[in-house]
């Protein structure tokens, strides 16, 4: 029996702990600074908005940890002596280990803006950031958000739920246009405006101005314009939270470098989740992927490796989802923001301006490689199978109904999509598959391809 220490009780660390317990009787210690119990970082916004209480965003009951013999220590790891296999904590004590898993997550980016450390200026990542925001909230007459990513738009929605006017600074010409294709990006920009947010496209922050007491009172943009505000949310992305070991012998780049088994350069030390950077990511995937499910997958994978069944980390085909105010977004496979030379896409948008689908395919072979969906839900497995089976665009459209995952009684857009497709490409194609679960199941069971 070995002793396994895990630093970080986010989704990665917790999944690793759970699966080590599932697979073995190793001793497991989970060290984390931020909170006593695991919570869903993705749900922070809902606590602020009053949809849930803190306890509701904790996926496991308190008794769970004891029952599963996972020891919890709430403290910060200050440094690690890898040669002695020993962690120093900020409470003065030390923890020894046989195996160490680093799962320290991310931290908000700060790009050295003047005034970024004033009071009333903060990112949104940790529990403490939310508590800080809550303390400030009653005094905010206007908030400014810097950085148009997923956390930025969540923060905008949070402010709006408290009736706090928001100015939202986005550097790009449209919201999230580094990731989203132009039409989708425009759709979301429009949607943000419809929600009464003062969206500033092509706007960069120049400096944040404070009063004598060190409190923010306005921001200045590149254009010279000044916006008065009482709070500035910094949401220009996140980066691996690895400062405390950067100067040690562990190899790092942006994150902690790991191989395909999630091993670092130091024996018996692994890194997973947001803080890990893959040396050789799989084709079509990036080296640092700060999303929820990759943390989960890595946690499970590393647990297996430590428990004796060496396992290569393989996240399969890229997927992700988000929500922009009221528009749900899903992506499966490869969807570049600008089509490359060998890729083309078929795009259909609903006339209500809140729904669209985009199917990306290879120009020559016509094989489908990706899906981008706004306001329409597709079945994950079906999209994945289409991509794995290298289905052609025609075939996918014929079978399109298999993918619909919208709730019962929702508008069935498949006819409109097909009509539009036929018109655009001068083809005659009819839907061959139905939208019932049974048909989707039959399709999925038919020589199910593994990644």
């Amino acid at each position, binding site marked *: 029996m070995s002793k396994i220490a895990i630093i970080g009780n986010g989704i990665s660390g917790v999944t690793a702990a759970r699966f080590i317990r599932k697979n073995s009787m190793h001793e497991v210690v989970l060290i984390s600074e931020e909170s006593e119990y695991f919570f869903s970082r993705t749900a922070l916004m809902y606590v602020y908005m009053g949809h849930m209480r803190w306890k509701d965003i904790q996926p496991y009951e308190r008794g769970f940890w004891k029952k599963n013999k996972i020891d919890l220590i709430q403290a910060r790891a200050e440094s690690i002596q890898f040669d002695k296999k020993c962690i120093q904590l900020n409470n003065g004590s030390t923890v020894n280990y046989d195996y160490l898993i680093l799962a320290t997550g991310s931290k908000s980016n700060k790009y050295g803006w003047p005034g970024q450390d004033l009071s009333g200026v903060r990112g949104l990542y940790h529990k403490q950031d939310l508590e800080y925001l809550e303390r400030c909230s009653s005094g905010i007459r206007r908030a400014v958000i810097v950085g148009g990513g997923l956390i930025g738009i969540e923060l905008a929605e949070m402010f709006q739920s408290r009736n706090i*006017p928001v100015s939202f600074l986005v550097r790009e010409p449209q919201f999230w246009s580094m990731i989203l294709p132009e039409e989708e990006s425009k759709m979301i920009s429009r949607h943000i405006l419809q929600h009464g947010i003062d969206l500033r496209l092509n706007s960069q922050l120049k400096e944040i101005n404070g009063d004598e007491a060190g409190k923010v009172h306005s921001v200045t943009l590149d254009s010279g314009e000044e916006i008065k505000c009482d709070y500035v949310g910094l949401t220009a992305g996140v980066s691996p939270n690895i400062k405390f070991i950067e100067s040690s012998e562990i190899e790092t780049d942006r994150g902690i470098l790991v191989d395909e088994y999630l091993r670092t350069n130091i024996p018996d030390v692994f890194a997973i989740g947001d803080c890990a950077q893959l040396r050789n990511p799989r084709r079509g995937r990036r080296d640092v992927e700060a999303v929820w499910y990759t943390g989960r997958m890595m946690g499970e994978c590393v647990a297996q490796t430590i428990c004796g069944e060496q396992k290569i980390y393989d996240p399969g085909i890229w997927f992700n989802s988000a929500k922009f105010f009221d528009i749900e977004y899903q992506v499966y496979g490869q969807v570049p923001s600008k089509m490359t030379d060998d890729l083309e896409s078929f795009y259909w948008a609903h006339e209500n301006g809140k729904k669209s689908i985009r199917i990306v395919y290879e120009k020559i072979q016509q094989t489908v490689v990706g899906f981008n969906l706004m306001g329409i839900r597709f079945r994950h497995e079906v999209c994945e199978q289409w991509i794995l089976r290298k289905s052609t665009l025609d075939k996918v459209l014929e079978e399109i109904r298999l993918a619909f995952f919208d709730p019962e009684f929702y508008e069935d857009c498949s006819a409109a999509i097909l009509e539009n497709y036929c018109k655009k490409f001068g083809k005659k194609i009819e839907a061959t598959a139905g939208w019932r679960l049974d048909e989707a199941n039959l399709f999925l069971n038919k020589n199910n391809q593994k990644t």
Partner: protein
Amino acid sequence: MSTFGIKILQKGRNKMWSVVIGFSGFLMLVAATYDLLPVGLFILVISLTLISCGIILYAYEAYRDVPEGIKNNHNFFNSLSSRGWLGWLTGMVLTGFYILLYWFPEYLGQGDKSNTGLVAFFDPLSQLLKKQNASQWFVYGVLYTLAILIMGVKFIWKYKHSKYQLIRTLSVIFFQLAFAFLIPEFMLRLNMPYNDFKNMWPLNYYFFDGWHLQEMMQNGNIGWLMLIWGVLMIVVVSPVLTYFFGKRWYCSWVCGCGGLAETAGDPFRHLSDKSIAAWKVERYLIYSVLVFSVVMTAGVLYSFYSGISSIAGVNTASLRSIYGFLIGSAFSGVIGVGFYPLLGSRVWCRFGCPMAAILGIQQKFFSRFRITTNGGQCISCGNCSTYCEMGIDVRAYAQKGQDIVRASCVGCGVCSAVCPRGVLRLENGSIDIFDRGKKGRNFSQ
């Protein structure tokens, strides 16, 4: 001030007015209870209209110019919906009303020959519908139906992003208005026995009572129709529909208790207890009630046909009255609805209803219904679990990519409607009935 700010202020003012309007209607009912108002159809209609308009205006203000989407902002800040003082007050008022209704109707004005107070206030409406004076049950029926109707309208506005919710709510409104209220009232007017054609044993626990069987058998064709339909519902209609659609066809599309929970109870749905301990209590309680109701019914039937009033020394009539008191009144009424603001809206359906227990067993083992989860998209946020009125920890399944097959799920679809990642879908499928919920689709392989 910005237009945004003005809009918020305006909204606040309009909402305040709607509260004043609704409350004045309610105060009229209170005044009537103390005989402070003259009795007349006109004044009754004014009172009920004020209440309805107040609530509808409030809902209109709250949802009219907001885009479609999830509307749960401030639920845990609002005193009414988060067990604050308003929640407790509402709970106490409701509970008090139920206690009077079941056990002390004379305080509501129920009289042997003629009524006073609140019951008398409803006499004119009762006369209009069925040419008889009102009873406390008539008052209750009117208020109940009205609650489903107007809170149903509010519910539809709130969930306007979900067509499933729209259709389902229209369905419960229809069944309450037509089947539970109007049809029985008209039948009484035509001197036929009272019958709610959608109410089924064992929820309708008096169905096999001697007096009820006799009443049906003595009423010619229509009586026999009621009897046969009642039995058909139990042995044919309900199993078949549950096989195809799960218990939702009844619990969240048809049933009156469910109807009230889904509409008037909606502001409290997140207060249901999600702990594993509560799930344990649930299983013990609900199946105990089921056994109790079967034993009680068997005893009553035995006595009816044999004429022997006790089995093994237990008097069947007293068994029946214990059931009526404990389960029929105290549990389903006083706790079931009175405690909405404290324990959530489905306390009765979850812990007590024997009908739900039967449908649940069938749903778990032999039905096409399940909630499927969309691959690896769940972000474990917990909205689904929080807003499940049945206290099901939906997230625990969803994050494993497992179908949700739970006896207690009433198929309200709210978990699916509030999931910010579109992970959940209520579905019926025939080819994998016995595999539902078995395997987690694990995307880390």
